Every structure is written in C-alpha cells, then in structure tokens.
C-alpha cells in the first residue's frame, strides 16, 4: 500500500507538470472550490491522521484548535502580537539521528509537502506559511524553493489562489544546526530571531505561537498525507494501517540490515516484519547476527529479539515509534561506542535552559567517555589525589579495582532518574531512554569490563 511514495518514480522534483499529471494539486483545488475550511478539518479528523513528528497528536483536532482562534487576546498583546494573522509551519527540521524521511520526501516529491501545507493553511485561515528546514539540507531547500516558485506561477499559492480571494504566502526558512529547533516552540523562537529554546506550554502554539498568534506546526510527512486524504476520501484512508493510527509511514532502516533506506509500510507493522521481510529490510547482512534494534533514533528505546512482534502505532505502545527510524544493531557492535554516541549527542544538543538536562547530559557524557576509555572515576573531581591516579594506573595495567566502577554506576542511576522526570522539555527525557534500556539489558556487560 503506497500513499507517500506513490508515483515517485514518475515525478521529476524540478517540474511541477510531472506532479500535476499524477493528480497533483487536485486536492487543493477541491478544498478551495468545493469545501469550506470546516469541511476540510472534519475530513482530516475522520481520516484519523496523527502527526508523524513523534508525538502522534491528532492532526484534525490540532487544526480545529487553531481554526477556532480569532481576534487578538490580551495575552497575545502582552506577548507582543502585532498582527491578526495566523501561521502554518511545516516542520522539516529533522535532526533525529538515523532519520531522513522528510528529506527524502522533499527530494523526491516536494509538491506533495507544499500541497498539504497549503491545504492546512487554508483550513485554519493562515495567510502565511513557513517551511522550516534543517540547515544541513541545502540541496533540498533549493528544490523546495524552485517548487514554490513553480506553484506560484500556476497560482497555487500567493495572492488570489486559483482565482479565489484566498492569499497564502510560503517562505522557506533555513535553520542553523540545532536539534532542539525541531521542538515546535523552540522552532518558533528561532523564526522570531531568538535562541532556539523551548517555551513553557500552555499556551500551546495553536493558541499562541509565532509572534503570539495561533500557529500550527506539522511535520513534513504528516502534511504529505493530506492531498491523498482529500482526493481519496477520509473513509478510505482510515481503513489503511492500524485502527488507532491509520495510514502508512516512511520507515528508515539502517545499521546491520540488508536493504537500508526509506521503506513505506502500513502503521501497525511489527519491527520483526520491517527488519526481516524481503519487502522491507530483508534480514541482516550476511554474517551478522541480530542483537537489538533501536526504534525512533537516538531518543528511541532498545528492542530485544523477543519483543520484535509488538505493532508500531501511535497508540499506547511499549515501544513508541517516534520518527520511525529503525537502527539494527548486530552482535559485533561496540556497545560503549553507542553509549558514547547517545550521550554525546544529547550533551551537544541540550539547549542549556534547564539545569537537570544541561548538567545531566554533560555528566552522562563524561561517564560515557570513561567507560569507553576504561578509565575510573576520580574520587575528588577538582583535585585528583595520588591515590586516584594510582588506581587508574593499576587499572590500566590490568588490575581491576573493585568498587571504584560502582560510583559511576550509582551516578548513572541518579542522572537517568533526574533526566526522565524533571526536565523542562522532552529532550531531557529522550536522553535517558536508550541508556535506561541499555543498563537494564546489558548492565553486566557495561560495568564488568
């Protein structure tokens, strides 16, 4: 069942004509000529579409919240709202390690995202839309810029869309390298020219977002589903995939799996099928043996062989599917490299706004480096005593000093507890997920050298 990747092989991303020949922009025309915004929102609600950015919130319900907001409130004035407009933002910041699904859509069929964005903007009554793209995706930003230009020539965007009285401007906004800017309120801050730190919620963006105005932020893949839903009908869409979260999903397979890359599959599929079915991953590379999989990038959980049969949905799952990337790790992998990779990532990407995450990710990274180098913790951080140095020396010479490693082990537990419960935004919690699983599953291997 292909929705997202349908007709990609027939489309030239630099030619809007090739998209139109595949029934492109039909859904936009239908929305503007035959439907009022409330109809569009109703249709999206019926489809059951849930956000593909990670949290899986109902797209239709989110749009409804923004559509219901009208005049400027006191709160907005206090926050400096200067206009009466609303905003629609496509989130293409994509920087979860191992995830490049949105990049792939932008490369293969940019108009699919733009059409979804325009329909969304129409539905909530936004006159201005942004595509916020990862600063590393320079080539893709150019493709999108060309696509926006061509859509403007065809009167799909700009002033008086398709001869109607509707105006929607679309602007490509390039990020500057910060994972946290994928979080919607941090993203909004960075468009406003501020540090990309998350804001306190509530108020949520559909109530008060960009420049204090109602704003919808949707993931690029979420938007790429919209044209299909309007064209084929919400009923049909809602029957694809799993009943709690209908539709298909672009999964990215990487690591020790045979067929790496983007694979579209219905939601509700199991990791087992994704990794081993010849339609998708096709099993492990020759000579490699499955150890565990990580679902959802560096913030994702580790799934052991015995648990691969849990369906991946946006409902309540033991293993949330997040961005939908699947890293397959084989038995020869170095777990300490992975621990350092996760800790280093969150240490670099922590925005520094709150103490538990700023300090927690830093200390975890220090410990990860020690584990990797087989160093022992110093008893006094500021002033390494002779004893500490001797301990490290003895240890390096092969004499394992019992008990010393325990200190790091206890600290890890404290840090993970704090990260998972006390941070300002979900990034701190993300930083604890894979470590938590690794300690539970492989603690012995990690600490007993």
């Amino acid at each position, binding site marked *: 069942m292909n929705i997202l990747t349908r007709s990609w092989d027939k489309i030239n991303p630099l030619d809007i004509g090739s998209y139109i020949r595949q029934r492109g922009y039909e859904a936009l025309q239908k929305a503007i000529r035959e439907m009022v915004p409330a109809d569009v929102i109703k249709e999206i609600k019926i489809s059951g579409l849930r956000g593909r950015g990670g949290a899986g919130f109902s797209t239709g319900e989110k749009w409804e919240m923004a559509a219901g907001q009208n005049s400027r409130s006191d709160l907005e004035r206090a926050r400096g709202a200067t206009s009466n407009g609303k905003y629609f933002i496509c989130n293409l910041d994509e920087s979860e390690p191992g995830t490049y699904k949105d990049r792939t859509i932008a490369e293969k069929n940019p108009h699919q995202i733009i059409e979804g964005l325009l329909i969304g903007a129409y539905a909530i009554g936004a006159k201005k839309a942004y595509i916020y793209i990862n600063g590393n995706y320079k080539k893709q930003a150019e493709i999108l810029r060309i696509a926006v230009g061509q859509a403007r020539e065809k009167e799909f965007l700009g002033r008086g869309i398709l001869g109607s009285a509707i105006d929607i401007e679309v602007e490509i906004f390039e990020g500057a390298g910060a994972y946290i800017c994928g979080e919607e309120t941090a993203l909004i801050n960075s468009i406003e020219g501020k*540090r990309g730190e998350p804001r306190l919620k509530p108020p949520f963006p559909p109530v008060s977002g960009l420049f204090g105005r109602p704003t919808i932020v949707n993931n690029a893949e979420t938007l790429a589903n919209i044209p299909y839903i309007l064209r084929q009908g919400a009923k049909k869409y809602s029957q694809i995939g799993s009943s709690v979260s209908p539709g298909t999903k672009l999964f990215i397979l990487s690591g020790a799996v045979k067929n790496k890359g983007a694979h579209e599959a219905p939601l509700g599929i199991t990791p087992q099928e994704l990794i081993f079915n010849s339609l998708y991953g096709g099993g492990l590379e020759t000579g490699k043996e499955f150890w565990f999989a990580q679902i959802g990038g560096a913030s994702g959980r580790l799934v052991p062989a015995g648990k691969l049969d849990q369906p991946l949905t946006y409902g309540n799952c033991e293993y949330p599917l997040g961005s939908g990337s699947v890293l397959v790790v084989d038995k020869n992998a170095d777990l300490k490299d992975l621990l350092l990779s996760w800790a280093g990532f969150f240490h670099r990407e922590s925005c520094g706004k709150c103490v538990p995450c700023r300090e927690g990710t830093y200390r975890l990274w220090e410990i990860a480096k020690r584990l990797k180098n087989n160093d022992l913790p110093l008893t006094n951080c500021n002033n390494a005593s002779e004893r500490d140095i001797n301990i490290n020396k003895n240890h390096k010479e092969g004499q394992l000093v019992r008990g010393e490693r325990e200190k790091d082990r206890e600290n890890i537990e404290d840090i993970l507890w704090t990260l998972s419960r006390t941070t300002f935004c979900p990034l701190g919690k993300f930083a604890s997920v894979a470590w938590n699983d690794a300690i539970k599953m492989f603690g012995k291997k990690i600490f007993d050298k």
Partner: protein
Amino acid sequence: MSIQKILLKFEPKPENLLGVLKEIQKENGYIGKKECEGAAGYFSLPLARVYSTASFFDQMKTKKESKKIIKICSGGPCLGEKSMEVARQIEMLLKIELENDARAKYKLELMSCAGLCDRGPIVMIDNQIFEKVKPETVDDILANYL
C-alpha cells in the same frame, strides 16, 4: 561584502535576523562584537538579544576560529558504517586526539547526525561535507582540503 551591505539586503524584521547572522558568518567566518552591534542597530534590538541568538546555533561562531575543524558523524548509522575507524585513521594521520584541543592547527570533533545516514560515514571540514568516507580514502581528503 561589508556587514552594512549584508544588512541592507534584508528588511529589519525579527524573522530575518537568523538569515542575516548566517550570511555574516559565511562572509566573515564568525560573528564578533562589531558584527553583533551592527545587526543590533539595524534591527533595533538590544545587543544582548543578538548575541544570545548568534551564540546558540552550531553553524555560527562568535569568535574567530584559528584551527581547522574536522568533524565526524557519531550517529548510530554512521557508527555502523565504521565511522570510528575513520576517526582513528584521522587521529593517526594528523597526530591529534579526538575532542582534544591540544594541537594548534587541527581539531577533530564528533558531530550530530547530518541526515545523510544513507551516505555515511560523513566527515565535515569547514562546513563542506564528504560522504562514504573510508579509512583508506580519508588521507586523500585530508591532503586536498586541509
């Protein structure tokens, strides 16, 4: 291009600040005090506001960088393609240590996933990206781009 010329290409609206700073970074190599002051004046913002933005993002620097920075991707998929072996090779060739500042000329750092995992391992030198780098090919890249 002078800072003034860059500024005049943009309307002084807050949503243009990041774009302006990125362009200054590209032209000037870093965004120092003088550049921040110029932008603050043009956008009618406090200097501290401009500096706080300029100092936040990976792709911008507020100090002049005298070292050549080589970055290697440490994301899971690149690790799977043996990016750490490439790092070892770079350490050997340049006689430097990963994430260690001691050498005057070069610095080898880990970087976060660039979203190019299907083309890994990824190495970046001064914002230029190299794909599918192997321990055997990395000396060529270093010879040509350092």
